[in-house]
């Protein structure tokens, strides 16, 4: 039945005998020998990241900052001071009559390396490391909570589609429409007043929880939107359909097929979110709605520094420089992580 035309058509599609291309394909033979294991996208990302000098340096800076914050009690112990003792008031000769340090440069000397706080006379170095500990731990908790909520809402909206997507999308829009700084300033005292009667002092842990809550409430939307978009594109990919054809239940599709492909945007976005939350928490403290009382806090150091900068600029410099270094390093790290994950997107 094979007519010449059929043979011609078949011939055009079949350049060689069946066996030629079928069994042993020349798959980059030289490479096959060297890396039979194969590199995962994660390993490739790590290799690219290691080549990025800016990224590695920023990662080191960020890690050191976190280490300093985490090791604050150890540093305090080695250094022999703590952030609560009012050295300037206990010991005469450290502060003058106007409660400013006697020595130049904010009272820096071999004993108080970073000087003394004007007024209360506390040690600046220990205050800074303890303050970083407070801010960073708050920021980390807020970031984790926001990422989790963003994953839940973004993936649910994107995967379910239809009505749930519509309502989750409008909820996201609604939350985005709040001016967040104003919201924080207005609502942190309100929530505090709801929980604790005005006469009582609010316990530190509760204040931390309130801060975390309000920042979390308005912190998840950007990532949720991003993830929803990602899920919408991933959902149309054929490997999701392939999993469905095999009978994979939806929960497993989300866990095994979707989430691993969302790691990149989640990681990149959270490296941008964390420094934002650090500045956010510091901003609230600066405005007087953050951590209160004797808890050492990065943001409140700025507030004090702003009061005294005309007489004692040194007090502003240490928390300021530390924060700038941290934020810049973290943002550069975020850029490098993004570049490492997605080498095709140019800057």
């Amino acid at each position, binding site marked *: 039945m094979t007519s010449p035309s059929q043979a011609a058509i078949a011939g055009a*599609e079949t350049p060689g005998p069946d066996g030629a291309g079928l069994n042993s*394909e020349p*798959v980059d033979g030289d490479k096959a020998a060297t890396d039979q*294991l194969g590199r995962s996208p994660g390993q490739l990302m790590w290799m690219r990241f290691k080549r990025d000098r800016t990224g590695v340096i920023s990662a080191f800076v960020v890690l050191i900052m976190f280490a300093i914050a985490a090791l604050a009690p150890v540093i305090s112990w080695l250094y022999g001071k703590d952030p609560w003792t009012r050295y300037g008031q206990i010991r005469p000769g450290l502060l003058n009559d106007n409660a400013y340090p006697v020595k130049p440069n904010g009272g820096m000397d071999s004993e108080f390396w970073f000087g003394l706080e004007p007024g209360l006379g506390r040690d600046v170095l220990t205050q800074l490391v303890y303050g970083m500990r407070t801010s960073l731990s708050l920021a980390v908790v807020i970031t984790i909570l926001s990422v989790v909520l963003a994953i839940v809402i973004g993936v649910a909206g994107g995967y379910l589609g239809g009505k749930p997507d519509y309502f989750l999308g409008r909820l996201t829009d609604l939350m985005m429409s709040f001016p967040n700084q104003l919201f924080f300033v207005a609502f942190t005292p309100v929530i505090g007043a709801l929980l604790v009667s005005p006469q009582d002092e609010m316990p530190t842990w509760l204040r931390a929880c309130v801060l975390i809550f309000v920042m979390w409430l308005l912190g998840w939307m950007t990532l949720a939107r991003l993830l929803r978009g990602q899920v919408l594109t991933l959902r149309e990919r054929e490997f999701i359909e392939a999993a469905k054809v095999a009978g994979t239940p939806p929960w497993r599709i989300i866990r095994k097929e979707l989430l*691993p492909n969302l790691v990149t945007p989640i990681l990149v976005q959270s490296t941008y979110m964390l420094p934002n939350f650090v500045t956010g928490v510091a901003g609230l403290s600066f405005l007087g709605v953050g951590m209160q009382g004797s808890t050492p806090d990065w943001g409140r150091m700025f507030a004090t520094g702003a009061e005294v900068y005309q007489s004692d600029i040194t007090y502003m410099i240490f928390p300021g420089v530390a924060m700038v270094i941290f934020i810049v390093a973290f943002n550069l790290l975020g850029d490098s992580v993004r570049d490492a994950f997605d080498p095709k997107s140019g800057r």
Partner: protein
Amino acid sequence: MTSAPSEGAAARAAGAGGATGAHTAAYESRTALTGTAPREAREAILDVRDLVKHYPLTQGVVIKRQVGAVKAVDGVSFELRRGETLGIVGESGCGKSTVAKLVTSLEAPTSGSIRFKGEDVTRLSGRALKAVRRNIQMVFQDPYTSLNPRMTVGDIVGEPFDIHPEVAPKGERRRAVRELLDVVGLDPEYVNRYPHQFSGGQRQRIGIARGLALRPEIIVADEPVSALDVSVQAQVVNLMERLQDEFDLSYIFIAHDLSVVRHISDRVGVMYLGKLVETGTESEIYEHPTHPYTQALLSAVPVPDPGAEAGRARIVLEGDVPSPANPPSGCRFRTRCWKADERCAREEPPLRIPDGAGGGAGSGGEGADGPGRGTAGNAARHPSACHYAEEKARIVPD
């Protein structure tokens, strides 16, 4: 003939344990079958009747009301016999891929039935659906999006085993995956690699291996080679043919490349705007098409011989494919058909063997084509959805 299903089942059961043994067993049973029964006489394992899929068109933001429907698939019937390849051709947007999604239960049909061995798949759910799904697997079009970039090849090919643990017990999986890779012509050492380390053809082989993992009886291939280079296309098509013999598979092979479909198919269905317009064996469709649309399609196939290319008559259709949301009345092809008259607008031609087909209709000028045309009458006797179905001479030059 009666022994066919039990033999297949035995091979399948054995396949769960030792795949290599099962391959040969399946192969033997297959050869035994072909020896005794011609393909046409085999039983149909998939019977699709009046399949309809309409996607509703809605208006309004909050309160949605339906204003119409995109009739992606509108009454498609066909059957698939064991071990045969049914090719489905048609231009983009004619509903080929929707048929594939319906057959693999990725989408629920608006109406109609899909019977797998007598059981209506469209009414199944839960465990029963899962069991049927095992037997109807799919190979996808784009090898670059059909493999999860975050999974190793071993995980991709072995994933179906997690969902259907009865196919390969836990301890057997690694070996089963390696055997599958071997079967599709990939080095089993590649199990720990990731998809981005492979070429398009290799990726498509991985996709085929995944489709084979559950030892299905039917594989729906939705344009499996259209994203590949021509030379690689041939390799993949040949691989699929080899696997069909080895595992006694039935294929629904969807493509828009007519020559690829001709190469692999036993029977061919031509789709236009959500309907099958002509079905028949490969030679009936390609050498004796009776539907004007098929004739036009075939006249557009490039012929590698410049002399023949210059000499043949090409049918150039005018206009565009009408919107499936608002298909023409009567025959859907009438807006572009040179034979169309008022009858075509009035009544819809059913897909059946045309009355006048055979010696009578094809006579006249075509009689001059020579004695070879004597058999053409019988070959033209295949279902065609046209009121004026008749053969047209010299569409593809001999």
